[in-house]
């Protein structure tokens, strides 16, 4: 009889625990969405349309709240750290970061690691070795190589003795280092000469004037999206003495410049894919705290003028809408 009583009490207790568990589950469903902050330079720029569309779509699929930080130029680690600290105070749950130039960025991110999960996009931190952080980006070395291959392929008279001017993005970035390395390696043995290199800085000077004043070249290779937009726009006025422009750009404007024949060839990293995949990784990390985020490389495509208005490119451009 006593045994029956104990069994009964234990059953009732077990049921109370179960009932409490399910009641908690009913109310826990109402908990707020996890918030992910996105830190990219000049976040309002149209250059990020595809990237932000990818981020938004993935965030919607994964039921995450996306905070696109309102930013201006990010020139150094300090600028980025300030933005990150602001968002930490806002109690965001994770970050998607385009790393700032400079070696110190890695040190700053080390401090963030362990506090909140983050993933890097577009490029790794500037260092001799890969940072080891999860990064979703195109293969920047390959981008340089693709441009070199296209230069060699397009110049029927061969590149021998041809002069090339290279416009780079910010110094001390992984993107810059690898793209120029890929370009140089790709052009090796072609007989051409890189006459000069110029590091583009946004908003400071009139870049097109500076380029026009530099030594005349046969080709301009532009390895930065913003530089391509600015320099490409000015090409309409034949400012560069007939120099053909080959560049890297992921904005709609860059494609329109190609369409308008301001530039000859465009290498386009798929920013939509970068945004989409990075947010997917963050979502997995937020769902399972022990999940180890994976790095991945996104697609890069070469677009020529004749490829425009094909169904394939139309589909690609849809991600900018």
């Amino acid at each position, binding site marked *: *009889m006593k045994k029956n009583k104990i069994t*009964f009490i234990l059953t*009732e207790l077990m049921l109370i625990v179960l009932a409490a568990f399910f009641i908690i589950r009913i109310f826990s469903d109402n908990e707020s969405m996890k918030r992910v902050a996105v830190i990219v330079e000049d976040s309002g720029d149209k250059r990020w349309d595809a990237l932000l569309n990818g981020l938004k*779509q993935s965030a919607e699929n994964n039921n995450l709240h996306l905070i696109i930080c309102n930013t201006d130029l990010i020139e150094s680690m300090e600028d980025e750290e300030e933005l990150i600290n602001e968002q930490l105070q806002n109690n965001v749950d994770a970050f998607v970061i385009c790393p700032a130039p400079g070696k110190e960025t890695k040190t700053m991110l080390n401090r963030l690691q362990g506090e909140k999960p983050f993933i890097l996009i577009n490029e790794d931190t500037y260092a001799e070795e890969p940072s080891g952080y999860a990064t979703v980006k195109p293969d920047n070395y390959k981008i340089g190589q693709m441009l070199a291959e296209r230069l060699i392929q397009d110049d029927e008279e061969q590149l021998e003795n041809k002069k090339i001017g290279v416009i780079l993005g910010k110094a001390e970035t992984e993107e810059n280092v690898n793209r120029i390395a890929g370009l140089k390696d790709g052009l090796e043995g072609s007989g051409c000469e890189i006459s000069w290199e110029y590091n583009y800085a946004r908003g400071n000077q009139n870049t097109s004037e500076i380029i026009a004043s530099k030594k005349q070249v046969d080709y301009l290779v532009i390895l930065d999206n913003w530089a391509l937009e600015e320099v490409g726009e000015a090409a309409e006025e034949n400012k560069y003495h007939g120099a053909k422009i080959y560049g890297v750009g992921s904005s709609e404007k860059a494609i*329109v410049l190609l369409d308008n024949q301001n530039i000859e060839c465009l290498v386009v990293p798929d920013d939509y894919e970068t945004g*989409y995949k990075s947010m997917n990784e963050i979502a997995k990390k937020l769902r399972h705290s022990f999940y180890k985020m994976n790095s991945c490389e996104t697609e890069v495509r070469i677009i020529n003028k004749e490829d425009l208005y094909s169904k394939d490119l139309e589909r690609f451009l849809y991600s900018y*809408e």
Partner: protein
Amino acid sequence: MDQKKNRKKKHEKRNTIQNMMQNISAWMDIQSLLMTVLSAMTIVTTIVMGLLIYSRFKMSVKETAISNAESRIESTVDQVNNELRNMRQICNAVNYNIVQEYDISDQEFSRQFSLLYEVNNDKLQSMALYDSDGKIIAAEPVATREKNQKVTEQDWYKSAIDEIENIHISTPHIQDLFENETYQYNWVVSLSSLVDMNHGDTPDSGVLLVDMKYSMIEEVLDNLNEAAGETYYYLCTDDGEILYHPRKAEIDRGFFTEDSSTAAGYADGTYEISVNGVKSNIVVNSLSYTGWKLVGVVPEGVQTASINKFRYYIIATAIILLMMLFVVNKIMARKISKPILKLDESVKSYETGEKTEIYIGGASEIRHLAYSVQNSYKQIEQLMEEIIRQQNKRRKSEMDALQSQINPHFLYNTLESITWMVEANKNEEAVFMISELAKLLRISLSKGKTVIRISEELQHSKSYMNIQQIRYKDRFQVEFLIDKNVEECCTVKLVVQPLLENAIYYGVGNMDEDEGGKIIVRGEQKGNDIFLSVEDNGMGMSQEVVDNLLTNSEKVPKHGSGVGLINVHTRIQLMFGKEYGLKIYSEPDEGTKAVIHIPAIPYSEEKRGELENQNRKRERVEDEKK
């Protein structure tokens, strides 16, 4: 044969189940059994009820979602149709009111063309008129510059030429005819039509192109998808090419798949199909003019969040219901089983002799059962008492018979001695003997009593010895050494006399006068026990004879009254218990000593009654054991 086998198998199976049930029933008490059965029924009922309610809710959510999708698709199709109708009207207005009305080289034509564009520029991206060679005649907005596109090779141009009467509507595409100063691509839906135009006096034909802003349709479809939950809507051509999809960029990159060709194959209506391996309902509705299909996909697990929440509600409610029902079951099981358990306990107590009352309570059936048990026990008790009474009667008669065994031989001999005395004129001796005999007989009878005072027993012994001494002509002596306190205690009657009889017959009876035969009767108390002994200095007996005296009466030679010592021993034990009785000590040529061991119980009438009743009870227990 098979039927027989089957029947046998069924029978075996039924037996196994019955045995199992019996084993379970035997293993559990009634309360546990009731509780288990009720709990099992409660659990099954609660789960079945929960599942039924849950599935009904799920079905209802699904039905509502499908119905919502149907109505939303219907109104969206109407909206898009309206937009396309407006576009067609604009197209017709340009054709009939401007192109066919005015000379294309006339200023008024350009003004009217521009005016119509201005009025509708919220919907229109551009308007253009081409001649039969694909050369542009008019275009709006004027600011746009012509690209180096071969117009005659474009689909919209060819369609307009091929289908003269119709206004051709293209799928959404990037506007590629004019350069854009904003460095942005515009998505448009092109409406093209072959038109007749007047160029001076020469009639000519051309192609009118009206580019409608795709954002107008996209906005309507975006609104449709907004807050649609898991349901989503997409637009495709009748051959399955996706024109709009909320996840179009993902589809283009292979991150998401949509089986649009299956949906495009269906006529307008609602269908259940498998989409991406998930069972879904699709609602298909066609647009006028284009044949495009607007498809709503309602996944099976639509509104997962609300269904999940409801699932938790159902489970929590079921658990609380289970808890309450368990308590009710417990109370009910206790209410039903308690009287039965009490009855069972009272029967058990009755059987062990702890209680004499049978519990009566609970439901009428149990009360009836209890009354029956109680009556049965009462009847059994009555029968038992009857049996005991009869047993006692039998024992008493046996005892009486044992006691009465003394009388015939002894009486015969004594009367013979008296006769002889009277004949020899020994009247005084005869009188003494008769008087002693009278005393002896009075005590022997004792009004039917079994227990008497030791003093009476000794009086009886003295009378007996007085008679015997006369008969044996004083060839032996008798001495009574009795403690005073012993005399007032209880004893079974006629226990000393047989010892004296034996002492005479086996001891001193055959001795000559000069041999000094002597019998000493002692009575003493040691603690709570009394020892009455009869000691003679006769010839004694061997140990073998002594051992047989109290065990096997057949082997002992019988003399005198014939009352064996074993009878004395038995009677004492019957009265006082196994720890008391008779013991014989003897040595050949030395003498014999018979010791009666009884408890020291002061004599009173009450005590006597108790002892005699106890004796009866003991006899009854022994009978029951037997």
